[in-house]
């Protein structure tokens, strides 16, 4: 799965390189090269493990100075959606 996100920083840290460096250290995350952004940082996630999206988002959200994480683009590979939640005819939850 390939996804791009925009990370919005708190006003107090906007423009500082510290948070960007922390973001860049998350495995599978790439920062946009050669451009400077003030309070919003565009990033790319390229991963064969679809779970890494949620994990990466959680890690981004836990960085001090990150105010919000939004999704911009996502491209699915041929990943099977194999969750079967409630087989027909079978009583669940009772």
């Amino acid at each position, binding site marked *: 799965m390939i996804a791009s996100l925009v990370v919005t920083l708190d006003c107090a840290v906007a423009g500082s390189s510290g948070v960007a460096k922390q973001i860049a250290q998350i495995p599978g995350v790439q920062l946009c090269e050669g451009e400077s952004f003030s309070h919003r940082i565009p990033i790319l996630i390229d991963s064969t493990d679809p779970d890494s999206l949620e994990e990466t988002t959680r890690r981004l959200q836990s960085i001090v100075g990150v105010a*919000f994480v939004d999704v911009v683009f996502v491209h699915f590979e041929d990943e099977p959606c194999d969750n079967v939640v409630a087989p027909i005819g079978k009583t669940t*939850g009772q």
Partner: protein
Amino acid sequence: MSRKPDTQDGVVQRREFIKASAMAAAAAIAGGASFALPILADEPATGVDWQKAPCRFCGTGCHVQVGVQQGKVVAIAGDRNADVNKGLLCVKGYHVGAALYGKDRLTKPLLRDGDSYREISWQEAIRIIADRIQAAPERFAFYGSGQWTIPEGYAAQKFMKGGLSNNHIDPNARLCMASAVTGFLATYGVDEPAGCYDDLDACDVLIMWGNNPAEMHPVLFSRVIDRRSRGEKVTLIDIGTRRTRTTEACQHYLEMKGHGDLAIANGIAHLLIKNGTYDQKFVDSFCSFKAPDDANPNLHGKVISFAEYKTLLETYTPEHVEQLSGVPASQIRMLADLFGNRKLRITSLWCMGMNQHTRGTAINTMVHGIHLLSGHFGTPGNAPTSLTGQPSACGTVREVGTLSHALPGGLVVTDAENRTKAEEIWQVPPGRINSVPGHHTVKMWESFCTPTSEGGDIGTIWVQVTNPGQTLPNLNKLFNPKGDSKAGLEDKFLIVSDVYPTATTRLADLILPSAMWVEKNGMVGNSERRTQQWFKMVNPPGEARDDCWQTIAVAHELLTRGVEGMKDRNGQFLFEVKDADGGVVPIWEWEHYYDTNVDKHLFEEYRKFTRFKHKDLAPYGEYVKARGLRWPVVEHNGEWKETQFRFSEGSDPYVAAGKEIQFYHSSTHDDRAQIWFHPWIAPAEVPDAEFPLMLCTGRVLEHWHSGSMTRRIPELSRAMPRAYAELHPDDASSYGLKNGDRIRMESRRGSLEISVWIDGRGKPPKGTVFVPFFDETLLINDLTLDAVDPFSKQPDYKKAAVRISKVHA
């Protein structure tokens, strides 16, 4: 040269291209640049076809670009051209395409055969439904939702009220925003917000009343956070019963007890008057006062004077409000000072916290009332705005009127003139529409789960696009009896159209496989009066078919059996569609359903209703071009123009020149809105010695509502696999509980076993417990209360008394 390396090169190049496109899209948004989507359209090598659609999930109504390749959705991008989301999506947007491809999609009609099901043909399924309806049309009910598209809801509405003379049609939206509707009606005489999302870009203060937009409407919240990150001063205030992710971003958190909001609203009004900081000019010009009429309870109450209003508020001093609500008096004063400052622009947001409330109508009117009393209304950034949880709670439920008392366009079945207007548009014989409201949701299901011999007058329910077996309150009374062989309900028949097996299909007698989202044409209406359109992009799997087709096919089957109601006054089929040459298109045959655009035909007919309450919609073609338009949409110099701020001169075309503000549907017929007094009243159930904790239920970021789509997505399911009970650490320690321990939770209505989460994502105060409702294997609604608001008939899912005990392994 071998073929393989070429292919690998091609794959690598394509992958690099997708990555570059993805990064370019994010960089453009981060940098504030604009670019034209579709992102990949100028690269034919990718073979991806991009089209617009609103997101399938919440009522925010973000627009996405959907990338389709070889008949499959392969990519999603936020739509930069959409005003709602400006290119952004929340994390559910990662998976909105994947929601189509769960392995257990329903693909064949299934008929119950003992404990299992057998596949049947669509023809047989349609015949079975027609048999049930024909045998007892008055015992038939249709249960839908705010996930019905506008044409789907309109077809169901016309079929029931214009065809069967049967008003037993109601949506699950009754469970989520009915109190917002009655709040708007009681205040302005007409439903739906005056403001819009633009207020979020202009307000100085944003107050969230029992609302958690950081998780439930993330793109809207991100819009405000972005402003703050750019250095703008925006004060965020969270008034809630539990700390959430929203709280973390707020400067002020006011933790209240259940129903504390009623006291807080009165406390603010009390101080505005006492301090002389209310907006006397606004009030004198545009408002009247109302109070409940206890002798004759009704939605419009009785008129009172300003002096009477002031007297009724006298006891709501900050100190008394503190006692009732748990919010310190100093914070009540802070709120009153903010509202008393007319230089500030204040927007209020709310959703389930104020609506799922046995005094939901009251608190809705009271929050409108504070804005009116303080003059924080009608200019950008000054708005009381309710949000919806479903993509078309506004468009389909509130505007098409798929409620048991309503007709399209804000008309009601109890009004003879309204019925005549609808009969005229539908061209059905006079008197066809029944004047008696049908059963609202709770009554409908109670009646279905009551034996016929004991007065249960609903025999068949057809459910489309919703999951009542999980989302109704007090399931052991309102749903589960259907599965109990000793309940005396053998003659009851449950039909469920859905895309996946759910808690509802497990008790269904007949299951119909439905198409979803971009597998069909659609139109929806979001929380800010914005009507949106999309075209079918991929085929549904197997024999899954559009819900709208299912309704029309049953209607046609009844027509062929001579059921008079399926004909209009000219003897033609209710859903007759003609082609350009005047020939009838047999849209009841699936093979011909897409020979024409049925959505367009239905929408153009429905559009005639929208002018009655000045909620004018533009022709279908305008929505094809736009990323949604906010009604009223009126033609001006050959252009269709949307409306940002209703009732405000210069924005709303229906406000007369020189009026400044005009509430032109005022219930007092004098262009005035009503400022209501309602007393504080305790919740319907409060903790006591036997059930000492207050249960609140709600949603989580990862799952959309009952989780029937999002639990199919492995990544979301792994991220939030099971429901849990959030407890305060002190309560946990007094019960000897630590994280992950199992507890038995019981209410007077049901029980379940569940794991505890202490200091988790949400932090409930002492004496309360929170459980999300997304998990089909842990049905918290077995425990919730089915007490309803007297006017909206909406139940309260936020306050039920429970007890817990540790389960020892």
